[in-house]
């Protein structure tokens, strides 16, 4: 298993962002759905070793991120695209990607080719020498994806990766996700259920810090059967149905 999570929690003061999550993920594309404030980003940040969990156990790529040497090994094989991508405006696209390749401790002789490949795969080949400050929001997002995949990660964590991408780019990106999922575990946190339907082999739905559903997209779609759940697409209706059921169970307003 590339990701093994048991009873994982994370608190920020009085707020319980993640409340006892259990997950086990192998290679493939895993979609993480949920409404705003469900705890998706906090879970992803823990998986990215940015923040430690408050409690529970977490194993990534067979290693314990609580130990510094093992955390460092994990990070060499990790890719992460945060929800709010900051960037250094003075960098070109290629420099930005190269910078993160070096921070991920890639062997220097592999860096130039890896940078070229990552930039090409995200469709920024003709913008490789453009300064980041001159790029549009969608292109910046693609530069962020390029830095995440430059080290050919075994665990790739993408928080809202398609935000700002145009429909054509989104389609291409889903294809890229499927390709990456052949060798790595790709966790995609998103609001867009069509991304999940098109690219993910497995999907989980989070609400109020907990995973309320985990299965395939087809199984999520099936959750809407026999209900009057709202939604334009079958997957959306499944999403609404699961969410409504979860909130009914806890007494929370849906």
């Amino acid at each position, binding site marked *: 298993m590339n990701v093994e999570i048991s009873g994982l929690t994370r608190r920020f003061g009085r707020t319980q962002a993640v409340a006892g999550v259990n997950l086990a993920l192998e290679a493939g594309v895993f979609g993480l759905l949920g409404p705003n404030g469900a705890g998706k980003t906090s879970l992803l*940040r823990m998986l*990215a*070793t*940015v923040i430690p969990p408050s409690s529970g156990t977490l194993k990534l790529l067979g290693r314990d991120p609580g130990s*510094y*040497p093992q955390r*460092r*090994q994990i*990070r*060499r094989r*990790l890719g*992460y695209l*945060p929800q*709010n*991508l*900051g*960037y*250094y*405006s*003075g*960098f070109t*696209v*290629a*420099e930005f*990607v*190269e*910078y*993160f390749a*070096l*921070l*991920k*401790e890639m062997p*220097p*002789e592999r*860096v*130039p*080719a890896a*940078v*070229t*490949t990552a*930039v*090409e*795969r*995200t*469709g*920024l*080949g*003709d*913008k*490789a*020498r453009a300064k980041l400050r001159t790029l549009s929001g969608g292109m910046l997002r*693609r530069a962020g*994806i390029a*830095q995440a995949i430059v080290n050919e990660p075994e665990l790739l964590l993408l928080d809202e990766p398609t935000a700002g991408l145009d429909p054509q780019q989104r389609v*291409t*990106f889903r*294809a*890229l996700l*499927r*390709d990456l999922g052949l060798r790595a575990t790709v966790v995609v946190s998103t609001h867009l259920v069509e991304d999940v339907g098109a690219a993910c082999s497995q999907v989980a739905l989070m609400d109020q810090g907990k995973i309320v559903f985990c299965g395939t997209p087809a199984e999520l779609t099936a959750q809407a059967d026999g209900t009057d759940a709202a939604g334009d697409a079958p997957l959306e209706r499944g999403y609404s149905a699961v969410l409504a059921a979860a909130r009914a169970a806890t007494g929370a307003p849906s």
Partner: protein
Amino acid sequence: MTAATAPAAPPAPARPARITLPAPARLLRLELRRSIMPWLAPLLAVLFWLTTYRPAMANPPFWNVRSGMVQSHAMLAFAPLLAGAAAWAGSRDRRRGVADLVGMTALPPWARQVAAWAATTCWAEAVYLACVTVLYVVTAHQAAWGGPLLWPVAVGATFVAASCAIGFAAGVLLPGRFTAPLAAFVMFLALAGGAFALQANISYAQIWPLNVQGAFPADAYGIFYPYLPDLPIAQLLFLAGLTAAALGGLGLPAAAGGRWLRAIAAAMTAAGLAAAGTGVALAGTARLEAHGIVIPALHDAASDRPTSYTPVCAHTAIPICLHPSYRALLPDVTAALGPALSQVAGLPGAPVRVTQVALTSVQAEPSNGIAFGGPVISGRPPVLYLPLAGGTLPGQGTASAITENLREQDGPVILSALVGLPGELGAQAGSGAAEATPNPGSRHAAQVAVLDGLVKALGMVQSAPGGRIQHGTPSGANQELAATRRFAALPAAARHAWLATHLAALRAGRIPLSEVP
């Protein structure tokens, strides 16, 4: 974007490196490219021109003066700006919102931070050293003797690194929009505080990085005596220690790296603090000597020996010989002192030669620390030992100010010594002065009238040494004034002839006012 795996022959958007640099070198190259410092380089160059180059060019081309300025003047302008720029670089990850992104990378944050600091420092050093090089090249073309002093440059360059390290650490530890201006302001305050502490005679304040051989550097250091490295060594210890402590401190937090890395950071911090403390302690034992600051624990007695040189001389009625550093001033000095010297040449007790000496008559005074001596006539045959500059020290005045000082102050002093009036010359002349002023303490109207007449005739400005005698009646003062006018009105040859026959009696106080021609 493409879903395919790496294409067989992709176009090369990022120029592949011909030589594979090691990872730290690649990281440093990237940091150098995105550093803020290239944008600040023109501003630093302008500041250097305003605060250092222009004042340096206004001074005579002495290596000690101009070298001292690259430490004191330049760093006063550079250090606050560099601290601010480094703080800006240090707070960059938080400001740019990439803290999460860089926080999950494998490279220890400390290594990443040191690379960013190194890039900032490399640019700053390059700008500083380029500015210094320009000043030194120009000085090399102008200076008549000696060579560039490297100790002030070493201290300046280390101060550049320390300013960047302190500013960078502030930026990392307190990331924010206002950290950069705050760091610059605090650095400026620290420098100003150091100046006040130095002026308040706090001995430890000698470590102040802008301090070049004391608060009132004489012209002796680096010209008549070797440049003493005692204080620069202590300053280097202090600044290198601060740099190490600031950078080491960044590696102490748990998130900074692994156990070994943090142990190295802790050792670096401790060593840095120890070095800085040692530097301050050494500065506390410093004492101001005639030719610079001496720190007993670091002092090499060989540095106390005067440098050897061949003087440059003007073959006037009384030859004037200067240190070769002052070669450019020789015509001015000759012009300033020539009239007075030609008036006294050949007279009994008059000097047969003028020899420049260092400003070594440094005396400790409780009020302001030191005092400088004036000209002295001593020896047989008498020689006028003349320290140039007097009240206008190199580094604090221009060449014209030095010669003007000679004309208006030293000229009358020489004449007053000749006529036997006590004054600064006699007071600071030591044993040799007794020959020039055989009757110190007394002041006769004829001596004053002759002195004033000479000063008036030579177009000098009367200064303190002679002064008028306090007569009981206005008629006494009028008689002295009339004698002055009479003597000044005489032809130069007549004055010289009268002095040749009456000087001994005049100096002994045996000439009444009525006998002054």
